[in-house]
């Protein structure tokens, strides 16, 4: 038994090499940038690593970021296996949040008990995200429109929709709207995710369940097989009986549902209401970070939780770094993107060998 585990680890290590290289390279470039700004890069790096992992508060924040980023990563990763690029995690996340807020507020006079309300709202978020992906899915399956364009359009539409919901009665908190930071009234306590100590909030449990479900989906299920087949060679898949339309629709809608879950959890667990701009952190939306996490691990269902956690760690660390050392957070963002680029380049070079 033990030999088996060691053997597995030995197999894993060479595969991990490009990732380690890329991460170090990313940090290296950023270290140079930080030095150019007149700060000590080693201090910066230690803050980035120790705060999220070392402090209780940091760890909680990391878990809180981990959940939506992981889900947004799935939103990109599931359609990716069918060679469909769902860049709409941002909008699908927002719509999930909108739906949850509207339903939550409309039942705020006589809210059902928590153990009913919370799962209901989670389902609402799931369906809302799926719904927001229906238009791009149909456009792709029946009209051939590339999902990148359609999902991004849906993103911007969702952004404006958030503003509308957060600025309009009966949902809005009117003074806030006038001050230029629209947000809605708070959700009733029965609609909020219970806290989970150092794990942040109960959303973490949802994320773990979802991660297991996605693993099962992609590795073992028939649908997963069909998605991979369509991604590998749609013509061949079709010739042998797989319905491309069905696979396209299902994979995109499922991806949207993932992001919708993320939005629901953000509203229910972190903010307690819909706030304009809540999806932004360290210079980009959670949806973008989800995509970056997925790119970092080549959309592998086992690798995603790891890279999403890594990503959240960096975000929390960057935030701390900005507060204590006055280094702008965008530095870390640039580092992350560079790491992703390096990983993709190295991945290709490995294949060539």
């Amino acid at each position, binding site marked *: 038994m033990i030999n088996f585990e060691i053997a597995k680890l030995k197999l894993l290590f060479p595969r991990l090499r490009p990732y380690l290289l890329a991460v170090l390279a990313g940090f290296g470039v950023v270290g140079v940038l930080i030095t150019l700004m007149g700060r000590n890069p080693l201090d910066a790096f230690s803050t980035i690593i120790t705060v999220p992992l070392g402090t209780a508060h940091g760890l909680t924040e990391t878990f809180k970021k981990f959940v939506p980023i992981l889900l947004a990563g799935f939103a990109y990763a599931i359609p990716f296996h069918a060679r469909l690029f769902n860049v709409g995690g941002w909008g699908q996340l927002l719509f999930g949040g909108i739906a949850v807020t509207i339903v939550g507020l409309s039942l705020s006079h006589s809210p059902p008990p928590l153990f009913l309300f919370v799962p209901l709202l989670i389902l609402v978020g799931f369906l809302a995200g799926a719904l927001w992906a229906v238009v791009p899915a149909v456009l792709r399956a029946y009209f051939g429109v590339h999902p*990148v*364009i359609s999902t991004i359009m849906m993103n911007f539409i969702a952004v404006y929709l958030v503003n509308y919901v957060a600025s309009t009665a009966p949902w809005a908190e009117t003074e806030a709207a006038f001050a230029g930071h629209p947000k809605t009234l708070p959700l009733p306590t029965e609609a909020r995710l219970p806290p989970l100590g150092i794990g942040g909030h109960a959303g973490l449990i949802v994320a773990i369940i979802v991660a297991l479900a996605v693993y099962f989906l992609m590795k073992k299920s028939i649908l997963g097989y069909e998605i991979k087949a369509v991604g590998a060679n749609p013509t061949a898949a079709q010739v042998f009986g797989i319905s491309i339309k069905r696979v396209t629709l299902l994979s995109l809608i499922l991806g949207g549902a993932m992001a919708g879950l993320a939005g629901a959890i953000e509203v229910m667990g972190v903010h307690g209401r819909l706030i304009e701009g809540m999806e932004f952190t360290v210079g*980009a939306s959670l949806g*973008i970070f989800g995509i970056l996490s997925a790119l970092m691990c080549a959309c592998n269902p086992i690798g995603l939780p790891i890279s999403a956690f890594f990503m959240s760690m960096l975000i929390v660390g960057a935030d701390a770094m900005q507060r204590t050392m006055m280094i702008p957070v965008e530095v870390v963002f640039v580092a992350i993107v560079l790491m992703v*680029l390096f990983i993709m*380049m190295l991945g290709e070079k490995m294949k060539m060998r």
Partner: protein
Amino acid sequence: MLEDITTFLEVTAMSIVPYALCSLGIMLGARTGVLNISGEGAMLMGASAGFLGAYFTGNPLIGMLLALAAGGGLGLIFAWLSVGLKLNQFMMGICIYIFGMGLADFIYRLCFGVRVLPPLIGTLPKVAIPGLSQIPIVGVLFNQNVLVYFTFVLTLVLFLILYKTRIGLETRAVGENPRAADVLGVKVIRRRYVCVAIGAAMMGLAGAYLPMVFTGTYTPLMSAGKGFMAIGVAILGSFRPERILAGSFLFAGAEVMSYRLQLGTGIPWQFLLMLPFIVVLIVMWIFYKRAEWPAAIGIPYSRE
């Protein structure tokens, strides 16, 4: 009524530039078989670099050149990844989009930190072409800033080059059947690099237009999806310069209408601002399958 049309034309002509320039840039790369979807990132980089250049030197021309360089630089990186390393063009486009977005914010933040009042530059003045600008209604098309004229001229130049010259023939051949071009001695890889880089430079310039003409400053995500709508324009125009200009007019018009309608109707402004995006979706729905694509688009080329 006539006045309304006139002002509509005037404002639309002013708004056409980001769509048209960016889309022409996409077209140039697409004609050689490379679909560069990182337009939004290139535009943001161009906006940031252009604004910083204009602000610190006081000369908008320097800003434009910096924007061209920034866009072109991103384009070269993209070309290296997708043509040189043969990675998937769409994934690389998304990566470069994210990268450009982040880098644009980063360099702006580096120069200015966080300020309450944003730094401003003067916007580009309008230059009237004597004679032509006096024509009623249509004359307003000739009373615009320099970049509008540049866009019109560029459309014409690109049309002439692509369809009326040997170089254009070769370039189009690279996008239709790169093997055929290669066999005849056309340097496929080099042609792709050059066209993608120049195209991306144009996207950068399109981005610089935004602070230089509309807002006078740089704000994160100021391009609001125009880089992606430009992809829609290019598809709608079947990657032809003249049709791209027409398509840009349509989308710019939709944008202008979305502002206009806020005053008249009772529709909340948020829904009106969604209008351009909905227009793109509808246009794609109708036209995507009818568009003519260069046959070799998206496929990396190698001899073996």
